Protein backbone atom coordinates (compact mmCIF):
# COMPACT_ATOMS: atom_id res chain seq x y z
CA UNK A 1 0.00 0.00 0.00
CA UNK A 2 1.69 3.14 -1.19
CA UNK A 3 1.37 6.60 0.27
CA UNK A 4 -0.03 8.25 -2.84
CA UNK A 5 -3.65 9.19 -2.74
CA UNK A 6 -4.94 7.47 -5.80
CA UNK A 7 -8.39 8.92 -5.65
CA UNK A 8 -9.18 11.98 -3.62
CA UNK A 9 -12.72 12.97 -2.74
CA UNK A 10 -13.03 16.49 -1.37
CA UNK A 11 -16.19 18.03 0.02
CA UNK A 12 -18.50 15.93 -2.04
CA UNK A 13 -22.15 16.93 -1.79
CA UNK A 14 -24.97 15.19 -3.58
CA UNK A 15 -28.49 16.50 -3.45
CA UNK A 16 -31.35 14.80 -5.25
CA UNK A 17 -34.34 16.87 -6.22
CA UNK A 18 -37.44 14.82 -6.70
CA UNK A 19 -41.06 15.66 -7.09
CA UNK A 20 -42.79 15.28 -3.78
CA UNK A 21 -45.62 12.83 -3.26
CA UNK A 22 -47.61 15.62 -1.66
CA UNK A 23 -48.57 18.42 -3.96
CA UNK A 24 -47.65 19.13 -7.54
CA UNK A 25 -45.18 21.91 -7.01
CA UNK A 26 -43.41 20.63 -3.95
CA UNK A 27 -39.96 19.33 -4.51
CA UNK A 28 -38.18 17.13 -2.08
CA UNK A 29 -34.53 17.63 -1.52
CA UNK A 30 -32.62 14.61 -0.48
CA UNK A 31 -29.18 15.56 0.74
CA UNK A 32 -27.77 12.13 0.16
CA UNK A 33 -24.10 12.91 0.60
CA UNK A 34 -23.02 15.68 2.95
CA UNK A 35 -19.55 17.13 2.63
CA UNK A 36 -17.75 13.84 2.32
CA UNK A 37 -13.97 13.74 2.00
CA UNK A 38 -11.67 10.74 1.86
CA UNK A 39 -8.80 9.29 -0.12
CA UNK A 40 -8.14 5.91 -1.58
CA UNK A 41 -4.51 4.88 -1.80
CA UNK A 42 -2.98 2.72 -4.47
CA UNK A 43 -3.43 -0.95 -3.87
CA UNK A 44 -5.63 -0.56 -0.81
CA UNK A 45 -9.15 -1.68 -0.04
CA UNK A 46 -11.22 1.05 1.54
CA UNK A 47 -14.72 0.17 2.62
CA UNK A 48 -17.70 2.44 2.91
CA UNK A 49 -19.99 0.84 5.42
CA UNK A 50 -23.34 1.98 6.69
CA UNK A 51 -27.03 1.26 6.71
CA UNK A 52 -29.63 2.11 4.11
CA UNK A 53 -29.78 5.76 3.16
CA UNK A 54 -26.30 6.60 4.39
CA UNK A 55 -25.13 7.62 0.93
CA UNK A 56 -22.48 4.97 0.33
CA UNK A 57 -23.98 3.69 -2.91
CA UNK A 58 -24.47 7.25 -4.15
CA UNK A 59 -20.78 7.97 -3.72
CA UNK A 60 -19.88 4.94 -5.80
CA UNK A 61 -22.31 5.97 -8.54
CA UNK A 62 -21.03 9.54 -8.61
CA UNK A 63 -17.44 8.37 -9.03
CA UNK A 64 -18.43 6.22 -12.00
CA UNK A 65 -20.55 8.95 -13.57
CA UNK A 66 -23.77 7.04 -13.17
CA UNK A 67 -25.10 9.96 -11.16
CA UNK A 68 -24.41 13.53 -12.06
CA UNK A 69 -25.86 15.45 -9.16
CA UNK A 70 -22.67 16.04 -7.21
CA UNK A 71 -20.69 19.14 -6.32
CA UNK A 72 -17.20 19.23 -4.94
CA UNK A 73 -14.06 17.51 -6.13
CA UNK A 74 -13.12 14.00 -7.07
CA UNK A 75 -9.49 14.07 -8.09
CA UNK A 76 -8.21 11.17 -10.15
CA UNK A 77 -5.02 11.22 -12.17
CA UNK A 78 -4.70 14.90 -11.44
CA UNK A 79 -8.13 15.86 -12.79
CA UNK A 80 -11.46 16.58 -11.21
CA UNK A 81 -13.58 13.82 -12.69
CA UNK A 82 -16.71 15.13 -11.01
CA UNK A 83 -16.99 18.11 -13.30
CA UNK A 84 -15.90 16.25 -16.42
CA UNK A 85 -18.32 15.68 -19.23
CA UNK A 86 -19.29 12.09 -19.93
CA UNK A 87 -17.35 12.19 -23.17
CA UNK A 88 -14.12 13.25 -21.53
CA UNK A 89 -14.66 10.71 -18.80
CA UNK A 90 -15.07 7.80 -21.18
CA UNK A 91 -11.43 6.85 -21.65
CA UNK A 92 -11.06 6.79 -17.88
CA UNK A 93 -13.71 4.10 -17.69
CA UNK A 94 -11.01 1.64 -18.54
CA UNK A 95 -9.39 2.47 -15.25
CA UNK A 96 -12.43 2.85 -13.01
CA UNK A 97 -14.81 -0.10 -12.99
CA UNK A 98 -17.83 -1.20 -11.00
CA UNK A 99 -19.18 -4.52 -9.73
CA UNK A 100 -22.89 -4.45 -9.12
CA UNK A 101 -25.01 -5.98 -6.42
CA UNK A 102 -27.66 -7.94 -8.24
CA UNK A 103 -26.15 -10.81 -10.23
CA UNK A 104 -29.51 -11.45 -11.86
CA UNK A 105 -29.84 -7.95 -13.25
CA UNK A 106 -26.28 -6.92 -14.04
CA UNK A 107 -25.87 -9.10 -17.14
CA UNK A 108 -27.81 -8.41 -20.34
CA UNK A 109 -30.08 -11.47 -20.61
CA UNK A 110 -29.98 -11.34 -24.40
CA UNK A 111 -26.23 -11.47 -24.83
CA UNK A 112 -23.98 -14.47 -24.50
CA UNK A 113 -21.26 -14.29 -21.91
CA UNK A 114 -18.77 -13.86 -24.72
CA UNK A 115 -20.58 -10.81 -26.05
CA UNK A 116 -20.81 -9.29 -22.59
CA UNK A 117 -17.15 -9.88 -21.82
CA UNK A 118 -15.81 -8.88 -25.22
CA UNK A 119 -17.59 -5.54 -25.21
CA UNK A 120 -15.05 -3.83 -22.91
CA UNK A 121 -12.20 -5.38 -24.88
CA UNK A 122 -13.41 -3.88 -28.13
CA UNK A 123 -14.46 -0.55 -26.69
CA UNK A 124 -11.06 0.06 -25.19
CA UNK A 125 -9.26 -1.49 -28.15
CA UNK A 126 -7.55 -4.17 -26.15
CA UNK A 127 -7.99 -6.79 -28.85
CA UNK A 128 -7.92 -6.74 -32.60
CA UNK A 129 -10.36 -9.44 -33.55
CA UNK A 130 -12.81 -11.95 -32.21
CA UNK A 131 -10.44 -14.85 -31.76
CA UNK A 132 -8.10 -12.62 -29.74
CA UNK A 133 -11.03 -11.71 -27.59
CA UNK A 134 -12.08 -15.31 -27.09
CA UNK A 135 -8.60 -16.23 -25.93
CA UNK A 136 -8.54 -13.45 -23.38
CA UNK A 137 -12.07 -14.27 -22.24
CA UNK A 138 -11.21 -17.92 -21.77
CA UNK A 139 -8.24 -17.03 -19.61
CA UNK A 140 -10.29 -14.62 -17.52
CA UNK A 141 -13.12 -17.09 -17.03
CA UNK A 142 -10.65 -19.63 -15.73
CA UNK A 143 -9.23 -17.06 -13.39
CA UNK A 144 -12.61 -16.44 -11.83
CA UNK A 145 -13.28 -20.14 -11.48
CA UNK A 146 -15.48 -20.87 -14.49
CA UNK A 147 -15.03 -23.07 -17.54
CA UNK A 148 -14.04 -21.38 -20.78
CA UNK A 149 -17.07 -22.92 -22.50
CA UNK A 150 -19.23 -20.70 -20.34
CA UNK A 151 -18.67 -17.93 -22.86
CA UNK A 152 -21.09 -19.43 -25.34
CA UNK A 153 -23.95 -19.60 -22.85
CA UNK A 154 -26.53 -17.12 -21.70
CA UNK A 155 -26.77 -15.60 -18.21
CA UNK A 156 -29.93 -17.47 -17.30
CA UNK A 157 -28.01 -20.72 -17.48
CA UNK A 158 -25.90 -19.73 -14.50
CA UNK A 159 -26.48 -19.47 -10.76
CA UNK A 160 -26.25 -16.21 -8.84
CA UNK A 161 -22.73 -16.89 -7.68
CA UNK A 162 -21.57 -17.78 -11.16
CA UNK A 163 -23.15 -14.68 -12.61
CA UNK A 164 -21.35 -12.57 -10.07
CA UNK A 165 -18.10 -14.21 -11.13
CA UNK A 166 -18.90 -13.23 -14.69
CA UNK A 167 -19.50 -9.69 -13.49
CA UNK A 168 -16.12 -9.74 -11.81
CA UNK A 169 -14.53 -11.10 -14.99
CA UNK A 170 -16.06 -8.25 -16.96
CA UNK A 171 -14.46 -5.77 -14.63
CA UNK A 172 -11.05 -7.42 -14.50
CA UNK A 173 -10.83 -7.78 -18.28
CA UNK A 174 -9.75 -4.18 -18.74
CA UNK A 175 -7.21 -4.32 -15.92
CA UNK A 176 -8.67 -1.37 -14.06
CA UNK A 177 -6.82 0.59 -11.44
CA UNK A 178 -9.82 1.21 -9.22
CA UNK A 179 -12.75 -1.10 -8.66
CA UNK A 180 -15.90 0.01 -6.94
CA UNK A 181 -17.67 -3.00 -5.51
CA UNK A 182 -21.24 -1.92 -4.73
CA UNK A 183 -22.60 -4.52 -2.34
CA UNK A 184 -20.90 -7.05 -4.56
CA UNK A 185 -21.62 -10.06 -2.32
CA UNK A 186 -24.76 -8.93 -0.52
CA UNK A 187 -27.20 -10.73 -2.76
CA UNK A 188 -25.46 -14.09 -2.54
CA UNK A 189 -26.06 -17.07 -0.31
CA UNK A 190 -23.67 -17.22 2.63
CA UNK A 191 -21.62 -20.12 1.33
CA UNK A 192 -21.31 -18.57 -2.13
CA UNK A 193 -20.56 -15.21 -0.57
CA UNK A 194 -17.50 -16.73 1.04
CA UNK A 195 -16.28 -18.12 -2.28
CA UNK A 196 -16.71 -14.81 -4.06
CA UNK A 197 -15.12 -12.86 -1.22
CA UNK A 198 -12.10 -15.12 -1.43
CA UNK A 199 -11.98 -14.55 -5.16
CA UNK A 200 -12.18 -10.78 -4.80
CA UNK A 201 -9.49 -10.76 -2.17
CA UNK A 202 -7.24 -12.93 -4.28
CA UNK A 203 -7.71 -10.87 -7.43
CA UNK A 204 -7.14 -7.66 -5.53
CA UNK A 205 -3.95 -8.97 -4.00
CA UNK A 206 -2.50 -10.33 -7.21
CA UNK A 207 -3.36 -7.36 -9.40
CA UNK A 208 -2.78 -4.62 -6.84
CA UNK A 209 -5.94 -2.86 -7.89
CA UNK A 210 -7.39 -0.34 -5.45
CA UNK A 211 -10.88 -1.12 -4.26
CA UNK A 212 -13.69 0.93 -2.85
CA UNK A 213 -15.81 -1.71 -1.17
CA UNK A 214 -19.35 -0.62 -0.40
CA UNK A 215 -21.32 -2.78 1.99
CA UNK A 216 -23.69 -2.84 4.92
CA UNK A 217 -22.19 -6.05 6.31
CA UNK A 218 -19.49 -5.34 8.88
CA UNK A 219 -18.21 -8.90 9.05
CA UNK A 220 -17.61 -8.96 5.31
CA UNK A 221 -16.04 -5.53 5.43
CA UNK A 222 -13.70 -6.56 8.18
CA UNK A 223 -12.48 -9.50 6.17
CA UNK A 224 -11.51 -7.59 3.08
CA UNK A 225 -10.65 -4.01 4.00
CA UNK A 226 -7.50 -2.20 4.93
CA UNK A 227 -9.43 0.86 6.08
CA UNK A 228 -13.06 1.49 6.82
CA UNK A 229 -15.20 4.61 6.57
CA UNK A 230 -18.38 4.40 8.59
CA UNK A 231 -21.22 6.43 7.14
CA UNK A 232 -24.42 7.69 8.68
CA UNK A 233 -27.04 9.79 6.93
CA UNK A 234 -24.73 11.12 4.28
CA UNK A 235 -21.68 11.77 6.40
CA UNK A 236 -18.54 9.87 7.26
CA UNK A 237 -18.61 9.60 11.03
CA UNK A 238 -15.44 7.61 11.42
CA UNK A 239 -12.57 6.62 9.16
CA UNK A 240 -9.79 4.42 10.39
CA UNK A 241 -7.82 1.25 9.89
CA UNK A 242 -9.92 -1.88 10.05
CA UNK A 243 -8.51 -3.15 13.31
CA UNK A 244 -9.01 0.16 15.02
CA UNK A 245 -12.62 0.43 13.97
CA UNK A 246 -13.42 -2.93 15.50
CA UNK A 247 -11.25 -2.82 18.56
CA UNK A 248 -11.53 0.85 19.44
CA UNK A 249 -14.54 2.40 17.80
CA UNK A 250 -14.63 6.10 18.56
CA UNK A 251 -17.92 7.37 17.24
CA UNK A 252 -21.14 6.54 19.03
CA UNK A 253 -22.78 5.35 15.83
CA UNK A 254 -19.92 2.97 15.08
CA UNK A 255 -20.30 1.53 18.54
CA UNK A 256 -24.03 1.16 18.07
CA UNK A 257 -23.49 -0.54 14.74
CA UNK A 258 -20.98 -2.97 16.17
CA UNK A 259 -23.17 -3.86 19.10
CA UNK A 260 -26.11 -4.60 16.80
CA UNK A 261 -24.40 -7.40 14.94
CA UNK A 262 -25.70 -10.74 16.13
CA UNK A 263 -22.72 -12.62 17.42
CA UNK A 264 -21.77 -16.16 16.60
CA UNK A 265 -19.73 -17.96 19.22
CA UNK A 266 -16.09 -18.04 18.10
CA UNK A 267 -15.34 -21.20 16.27
CA UNK A 268 -13.16 -23.89 17.67
CA UNK A 269 -11.32 -25.30 14.73
CA UNK A 270 -11.18 -24.85 11.02
CA UNK A 271 -11.23 -27.97 8.92
CA UNK A 272 -9.43 -28.45 5.64
CA UNK A 273 -11.53 -28.30 2.52
CA UNK A 274 -11.19 -29.89 -0.90
CA UNK A 275 -9.01 -27.17 -2.38
CA UNK A 276 -6.99 -24.27 -1.07
CA UNK A 277 -8.51 -20.88 -0.40
CA UNK A 278 -12.09 -21.93 -0.25
CA UNK A 279 -12.63 -23.66 -3.55
CA UNK A 280 -13.99 -22.13 -6.71
CA UNK A 281 -15.82 -24.63 -8.86
Amino acid at each position, binding site marked *: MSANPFLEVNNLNVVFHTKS*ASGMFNKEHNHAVKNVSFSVYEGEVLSLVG*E*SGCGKTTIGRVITHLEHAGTGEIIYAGQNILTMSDTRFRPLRKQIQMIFQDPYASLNPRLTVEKTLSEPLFIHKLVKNRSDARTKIAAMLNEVGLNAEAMDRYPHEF*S*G*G*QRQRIGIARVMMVQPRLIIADEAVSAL*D*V*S*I*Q*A*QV*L*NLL*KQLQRSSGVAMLFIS*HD*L*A*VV*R*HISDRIAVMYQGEIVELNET*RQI*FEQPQHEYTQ*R*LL*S*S*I*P*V*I*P*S*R*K*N*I*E*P*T*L*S*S*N*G*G*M*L
Partner: protein
Amino acid sequence: MSKAEALLRVENLNIAILENKQLQPVVRGISFDLHTGETLGIVGESGSGKSLTALAIMGLLTGTPIRITGGHIWFKGEDLLQQSKAQRRALMGNAMAMIFQEPMTSLNPVYRIGDQIIETIKQHQNINANGARKRALELLDMVKIPDATHRIDHYPHQLSGGQRQRVMIAMALACDPDLLIADEPTTALDVTVQKEILELMAELQRTTGTAIILISHDLGVITQTCDSVAVMYCGKIVESSSTKNLFDRLGHPYTRGLINSIPPLDNDIEWLNAIPGQVPALNALPTGCPFQPRCYHAQDQCNQAPPLTLIDDEHKVRCHFAVQLQSSDS
Protein backbone atom coordinates in the same frame (compact mmCIF):
# COMPACT_ATOMS: atom_id res chain seq x y z
CA MET B 1 -42.35 -36.50 23.69
CA SER B 2 -45.89 -37.55 22.91
CA LYS B 3 -47.93 -35.83 20.25
CA ALA B 4 -50.04 -34.18 22.88
CA GLU B 5 -47.12 -32.41 24.47
CA ALA B 6 -45.55 -30.84 21.41
CA LEU B 7 -47.53 -27.88 20.10
CA LEU B 8 -46.43 -28.61 16.56
CA ARG B 9 -45.06 -31.86 15.27
CA VAL B 10 -44.00 -32.14 11.68
CA GLU B 11 -43.63 -35.77 10.69
CA ASN B 12 -41.93 -36.89 7.51
CA LEU B 13 -43.20 -33.94 5.49
CA ASN B 14 -42.74 -34.22 1.75
CA ILE B 15 -43.39 -31.33 -0.62
CA ALA B 16 -43.06 -31.37 -4.40
CA ILE B 17 -43.47 -28.87 -7.23
CA LEU B 18 -45.66 -29.70 -10.20
CA GLU B 19 -43.62 -28.89 -13.28
CA ASN B 20 -44.56 -30.00 -16.77
CA LYS B 21 -47.05 -32.43 -15.29
CA GLN B 22 -44.34 -34.08 -13.18
CA LEU B 23 -43.78 -33.83 -9.47
CA GLN B 24 -40.31 -32.62 -8.55
CA PRO B 25 -39.59 -33.29 -4.84
CA VAL B 26 -38.35 -30.24 -2.98
CA VAL B 27 -38.74 -31.09 0.68
CA ARG B 28 -37.93 -34.74 1.19
CA GLY B 29 -39.10 -36.09 4.51
CA ILE B 30 -38.45 -33.64 7.33
CA SER B 31 -39.54 -33.99 10.93
CA PHE B 32 -39.31 -31.70 13.93
CA ASP B 33 -41.14 -30.72 17.10
CA LEU B 34 -41.97 -27.38 18.60
CA HIS B 35 -43.23 -26.71 22.11
CA THR B 36 -45.15 -23.80 23.55
CA GLY B 37 -42.95 -20.85 24.40
CA GLU B 38 -40.04 -22.20 22.38
CA THR B 39 -38.27 -20.69 19.39
CA LEU B 40 -37.05 -22.99 16.65
CA GLY B 41 -34.74 -21.66 14.01
CA ILE B 42 -34.63 -23.16 10.53
CA VAL B 43 -31.42 -22.32 8.73
CA GLY B 44 -30.78 -22.91 5.07
CA GLU B 45 -29.73 -21.30 1.85
CA SER B 46 -31.54 -21.01 -1.47
CA GLY B 47 -33.13 -24.26 -2.50
CA SER B 48 -33.13 -25.78 0.96
CA GLY B 49 -36.91 -25.84 1.17
CA LYS B 50 -37.20 -23.85 4.37
CA SER B 51 -39.72 -21.32 3.11
CA LEU B 52 -41.88 -23.99 1.53
CA THR B 53 -41.97 -25.81 4.85
CA ALA B 54 -43.31 -22.66 6.51
CA LEU B 55 -45.93 -22.16 3.81
CA ALA B 56 -46.99 -25.79 4.14
CA ILE B 57 -47.53 -25.44 7.86
CA MET B 58 -49.51 -22.23 7.40
CA GLY B 59 -51.58 -23.75 4.63
CA LEU B 60 -50.60 -21.17 2.04
CA LEU B 61 -49.85 -23.67 -0.69
CA THR B 62 -53.37 -24.15 -1.99
CA GLY B 63 -53.79 -22.83 -5.51
CA THR B 64 -50.10 -23.09 -6.27
CA PRO B 65 -48.33 -25.79 -8.27
CA ILE B 66 -46.75 -26.94 -5.02
CA ARG B 67 -48.12 -30.12 -3.50
CA ILE B 68 -47.71 -31.76 -0.14
CA THR B 69 -47.04 -35.32 -1.16
CA GLY B 70 -46.68 -37.00 2.21
CA GLY B 71 -46.31 -36.75 5.95
CA HIS B 72 -48.25 -35.17 8.78
CA ILE B 73 -48.38 -31.79 10.43
CA TRP B 74 -49.74 -32.27 13.90
CA PHE B 75 -50.91 -29.03 15.51
CA LYS B 76 -52.41 -29.28 18.96
CA GLY B 77 -53.10 -32.93 18.33
CA GLU B 78 -54.83 -32.53 14.95
CA ASP B 79 -53.29 -33.42 11.59
CA LEU B 80 -53.59 -30.22 9.56
CA LEU B 81 -53.21 -32.10 6.30
CA GLN B 82 -56.39 -34.02 6.97
CA GLN B 83 -58.43 -30.90 7.58
CA SER B 84 -60.71 -29.13 5.16
CA LYS B 85 -59.85 -25.75 3.64
CA ALA B 86 -62.39 -24.07 5.86
CA GLN B 87 -60.92 -25.60 8.98
CA ARG B 88 -57.44 -24.51 8.03
CA ARG B 89 -58.58 -21.03 7.18
CA ALA B 90 -60.12 -20.75 10.61
CA LEU B 91 -56.69 -21.34 12.06
CA MET B 92 -54.87 -18.86 9.85
CA GLY B 93 -54.30 -15.58 11.60
CA ASN B 94 -55.96 -17.04 14.63
CA ALA B 95 -54.09 -19.90 16.18
CA MET B 96 -51.16 -19.56 13.83
CA ALA B 97 -49.80 -16.47 12.14
CA MET B 98 -46.99 -15.64 9.75
CA ILE B 99 -44.80 -12.66 9.02
CA PHE B 100 -42.77 -12.28 5.88
CA GLN B 101 -39.56 -10.76 4.68
CA GLU B 102 -40.79 -7.74 2.78
CA PRO B 103 -43.12 -5.68 4.94
CA MET B 104 -43.80 -3.28 2.08
CA THR B 105 -45.37 -5.92 -0.10
CA SER B 106 -47.05 -7.80 2.73
CA LEU B 107 -49.04 -4.76 3.72
CA ASN B 108 -51.69 -3.48 1.34
CA PRO B 109 -50.49 -0.05 0.28
CA VAL B 110 -53.97 1.42 -0.18
CA TYR B 111 -55.33 0.68 3.26
CA ARG B 112 -54.39 2.34 6.51
CA ILE B 113 -52.41 0.15 8.85
CA GLY B 114 -55.08 0.42 11.50
CA ASP B 115 -57.69 -0.91 9.11
CA GLN B 116 -55.51 -3.84 8.18
CA ILE B 117 -55.01 -4.83 11.80
CA ILE B 118 -58.71 -4.40 12.50
CA GLU B 119 -59.57 -6.60 9.53
CA THR B 120 -57.57 -9.44 11.02
CA ILE B 121 -59.19 -8.97 14.39
CA LYS B 122 -62.72 -8.91 13.04
CA GLN B 123 -62.04 -11.92 10.86
CA HIS B 124 -61.58 -14.16 13.84
CA GLN B 125 -63.22 -12.46 16.76
CA ASN B 126 -66.77 -11.43 17.44
CA ILE B 127 -66.09 -7.83 18.30
CA ASN B 128 -67.53 -4.46 17.33
CA ALA B 129 -65.69 -1.67 15.55
CA ASN B 130 -64.81 0.23 18.68
CA GLY B 131 -63.53 -2.83 20.44
CA ALA B 132 -61.45 -3.77 17.44
CA ARG B 133 -59.89 -0.34 17.23
CA LYS B 134 -59.05 -0.42 20.92
CA ARG B 135 -57.41 -3.77 20.49
CA ALA B 136 -55.48 -2.46 17.46
CA LEU B 137 -54.14 0.42 19.51
CA GLU B 138 -53.15 -2.02 22.25
CA LEU B 139 -51.26 -4.06 19.72
CA LEU B 140 -49.45 -1.07 18.27
CA ASP B 141 -48.37 -0.14 21.76
CA MET B 142 -47.23 -3.67 22.37
CA VAL B 143 -44.95 -3.52 19.34
CA LYS B 144 -43.71 -0.12 20.45
CA ILE B 145 -44.95 2.01 17.59
CA PRO B 146 -44.54 5.54 18.88
CA ASP B 147 -47.61 7.79 18.91
CA ALA B 148 -49.93 4.92 18.11
CA THR B 149 -53.12 6.97 18.24
CA HIS B 150 -51.96 8.91 15.20
CA ARG B 151 -49.97 6.23 13.44
CA ILE B 152 -52.93 3.91 13.37
CA ASP B 153 -54.38 6.00 10.56
CA HIS B 154 -51.20 6.12 8.50
CA TYR B 155 -50.59 4.31 5.26
CA PRO B 156 -47.74 1.79 4.93
CA HIS B 157 -45.61 4.10 2.83
CA GLN B 158 -45.58 6.64 5.63
CA LEU B 159 -43.78 4.21 7.92
CA SER B 160 -40.17 3.12 7.92
CA GLY B 161 -39.17 -0.46 7.13
CA GLY B 162 -38.74 -1.31 10.78
CA GLN B 163 -42.07 0.20 11.71
CA ARG B 164 -43.82 -1.72 8.97
CA GLN B 165 -42.38 -4.93 10.27
CA ARG B 166 -43.66 -4.03 13.72
CA VAL B 167 -47.10 -3.56 12.23
CA MET B 168 -46.80 -6.99 10.64
CA ILE B 169 -45.95 -8.43 14.03
CA ALA B 170 -48.90 -6.61 15.57
CA MET B 171 -51.21 -8.08 12.94
CA ALA B 172 -49.78 -11.51 13.53
CA LEU B 173 -50.30 -11.30 17.27
CA ALA B 174 -53.77 -9.79 17.00
CA CYS B 175 -55.57 -12.98 17.85
CA ASP B 176 -53.08 -14.34 20.32
CA PRO B 177 -51.74 -17.14 18.18
CA ASP B 178 -50.17 -20.24 19.63
CA LEU B 179 -47.65 -20.35 16.80
CA LEU B 180 -45.89 -17.57 14.94
CA ILE B 181 -43.88 -18.31 11.82
CA ALA B 182 -41.41 -15.62 10.81
CA ASP B 183 -39.87 -16.05 7.37
CA GLU B 184 -36.69 -13.98 7.16
CA PRO B 185 -38.36 -11.20 9.18
CA THR B 186 -35.28 -9.02 9.46
CA THR B 187 -33.40 -9.77 6.26
CA ALA B 188 -34.61 -6.63 4.53
CA LEU B 189 -33.90 -4.40 7.52
CA ASP B 190 -30.85 -2.49 8.64
CA VAL B 191 -28.79 -4.23 11.27
CA THR B 192 -29.63 -1.73 14.00
CA VAL B 193 -33.32 -2.08 13.26
CA GLN B 194 -32.92 -5.84 13.11
CA LYS B 195 -31.62 -5.85 16.64
CA GLU B 196 -34.68 -3.99 17.86
CA ILE B 197 -37.12 -6.23 16.03
CA LEU B 198 -35.49 -9.41 17.31
CA GLU B 199 -35.49 -8.07 20.85
CA LEU B 200 -39.14 -7.15 20.46
CA MET B 201 -40.01 -10.63 19.28
CA ALA B 202 -38.16 -12.20 22.21
CA GLU B 203 -39.95 -9.95 24.69
CA LEU B 204 -43.34 -10.64 23.15
CA GLN B 205 -42.68 -14.31 23.36
CA ARG B 206 -41.90 -13.98 27.04
CA THR B 207 -45.19 -12.21 27.72
CA THR B 208 -47.49 -14.18 25.44
CA GLY B 209 -45.87 -17.58 25.39
CA THR B 210 -46.22 -17.90 21.61
CA ALA B 211 -44.07 -20.55 20.00
CA ILE B 212 -41.99 -19.17 17.16
CA ILE B 213 -40.46 -20.72 14.07
CA LEU B 214 -37.82 -18.36 12.76
CA ILE B 215 -36.55 -18.99 9.27
CA SER B 216 -33.32 -17.38 8.24
CA HIS B 217 -30.16 -17.78 6.25
CA ASP B 218 -28.33 -15.78 8.92
CA LEU B 219 -26.75 -17.96 11.59
CA GLY B 220 -26.14 -14.91 13.74
CA VAL B 221 -29.84 -14.09 13.89
CA ILE B 222 -30.64 -17.68 14.75
CA THR B 223 -28.03 -17.79 17.47
CA GLN B 224 -29.40 -14.70 19.11
CA THR B 225 -33.03 -15.68 19.15
CA CYS B 226 -33.58 -19.41 18.98
CA ASP B 227 -33.59 -22.19 21.53
CA SER B 228 -33.09 -24.90 18.96
CA VAL B 229 -31.98 -25.06 15.35
CA ALA B 230 -32.68 -27.23 12.34
CA VAL B 231 -30.27 -26.94 9.43
CA MET B 232 -31.77 -27.72 6.03
CA TYR B 233 -29.95 -28.65 2.85
CA CYS B 234 -31.59 -29.75 -0.39
CA GLY B 235 -34.90 -30.47 1.26
CA LYS B 236 -33.61 -32.47 4.18
CA ILE B 237 -32.79 -31.59 7.76
CA VAL B 238 -29.11 -32.37 8.05
CA GLU B 239 -28.65 -31.28 11.62
CA SER B 240 -30.87 -30.41 14.52
CA SER B 241 -29.81 -29.42 17.99
CA SER B 242 -30.10 -26.81 20.68
CA THR B 243 -28.49 -23.58 19.58
CA LYS B 244 -25.71 -23.83 22.09
CA ASN B 245 -24.72 -27.30 21.02
CA LEU B 246 -24.58 -26.34 17.38
CA PHE B 247 -21.42 -24.38 17.99
CA ASP B 248 -19.99 -26.42 20.80
CA ARG B 249 -19.87 -29.64 18.91
CA LEU B 250 -18.77 -30.68 15.46
CA GLY B 251 -21.94 -31.53 13.62
CA HIS B 252 -22.73 -31.86 9.96
CA PRO B 253 -19.97 -30.80 7.56
CA TYR B 254 -22.45 -28.45 5.86
CA THR B 255 -23.15 -26.65 9.11
CA ARG B 256 -19.44 -26.42 9.70
CA GLY B 257 -19.06 -24.98 6.23
CA LEU B 258 -21.78 -22.42 6.87
CA ILE B 259 -20.15 -21.33 10.09
CA ASN B 260 -16.78 -21.07 8.37
CA SER B 261 -18.27 -18.99 5.57
CA ILE B 262 -19.01 -16.13 7.89
CA PRO B 263 -16.01 -13.85 8.32
CA PRO B 264 -15.16 -13.75 12.03
CA LEU B 265 -15.50 -10.49 13.88
CA ASP B 266 -13.02 -11.24 16.58
CA ASN B 267 -9.93 -12.18 14.64
CA ASP B 268 -8.37 -11.90 11.23
CA ILE B 269 -8.06 -14.85 8.95
CA GLU B 270 -6.55 -14.81 5.50
CA TRP B 271 -9.00 -16.93 3.56
CA LEU B 272 -12.48 -18.06 4.41
CA ASN B 273 -12.91 -21.79 4.45
CA ALA B 274 -15.71 -21.66 1.94
CA ILE B 275 -17.73 -24.68 0.86
CA PRO B 276 -16.61 -25.47 -2.66
CA GLY B 277 -19.10 -25.91 -5.50
CA GLN B 278 -22.75 -24.98 -5.36
CA VAL B 279 -26.14 -26.32 -4.40
CA PRO B 280 -27.15 -28.99 -6.94
CA ALA B 281 -30.23 -28.49 -9.07
CA LEU B 282 -33.36 -30.14 -7.68
CA ASN B 283 -33.56 -32.60 -10.52
CA ALA B 284 -29.89 -33.48 -10.45
CA LEU B 285 -29.34 -34.44 -6.83
CA PRO B 286 -26.51 -36.89 -6.14
CA THR B 287 -27.51 -40.35 -4.91
CA GLY B 288 -27.27 -40.78 -1.19
CA CYS B 289 -26.11 -37.75 0.73
CA PRO B 290 -26.87 -34.56 -1.22
CA PHE B 291 -23.90 -32.77 0.27
CA GLN B 292 -21.44 -35.38 -0.94
CA PRO B 293 -19.85 -33.52 -3.89
CA ARG B 294 -18.95 -30.56 -1.70
CA CYS B 295 -17.93 -32.39 1.46
CA TYR B 296 -14.34 -32.61 2.65
CA HIS B 297 -15.11 -35.92 4.27
CA ALA B 298 -16.92 -37.66 1.40
CA GLN B 299 -16.33 -41.33 0.88
CA ASP B 300 -17.86 -44.21 -1.04
CA GLN B 301 -20.27 -44.89 1.77
CA CYS B 302 -21.89 -41.54 1.13
CA ASN B 303 -23.61 -42.94 -1.92
CA GLN B 304 -26.13 -44.34 0.49
CA ALA B 305 -28.50 -41.94 2.18
CA PRO B 306 -27.15 -41.30 5.66
CA PRO B 307 -29.43 -41.83 8.65
CA LEU B 308 -30.14 -39.23 11.30
CA THR B 309 -27.65 -40.07 14.03
CA LEU B 310 -27.93 -38.94 17.62
CA ILE B 311 -24.57 -37.71 18.82
CA ASP B 312 -25.59 -36.04 22.02
CA ASP B 313 -28.56 -35.01 24.07
CA GLU B 314 -31.02 -33.93 21.35
CA HIS B 315 -28.26 -33.30 18.85
CA LYS B 316 -28.92 -35.19 15.63
CA VAL B 317 -26.72 -35.19 12.54
CA ARG B 318 -27.54 -36.73 9.19
CA CYS B 319 -24.12 -38.07 8.33
CA HIS B 320 -22.46 -41.49 8.23
CA PHE B 321 -19.53 -40.10 10.13
CA ALA B 322 -21.39 -38.08 12.72
CA VAL B 323 -19.87 -39.96 15.62
CA GLN B 324 -16.40 -40.26 14.12
CA LEU B 325 -16.18 -36.55 13.50
CA GLN B 326 -16.84 -36.04 17.17
CA SER B 327 -13.97 -38.19 18.32
CA SER B 328 -11.50 -36.49 15.96
CA ASP B 329 -12.34 -33.16 17.50
CA SER B 330 -9.72 -32.05 19.99
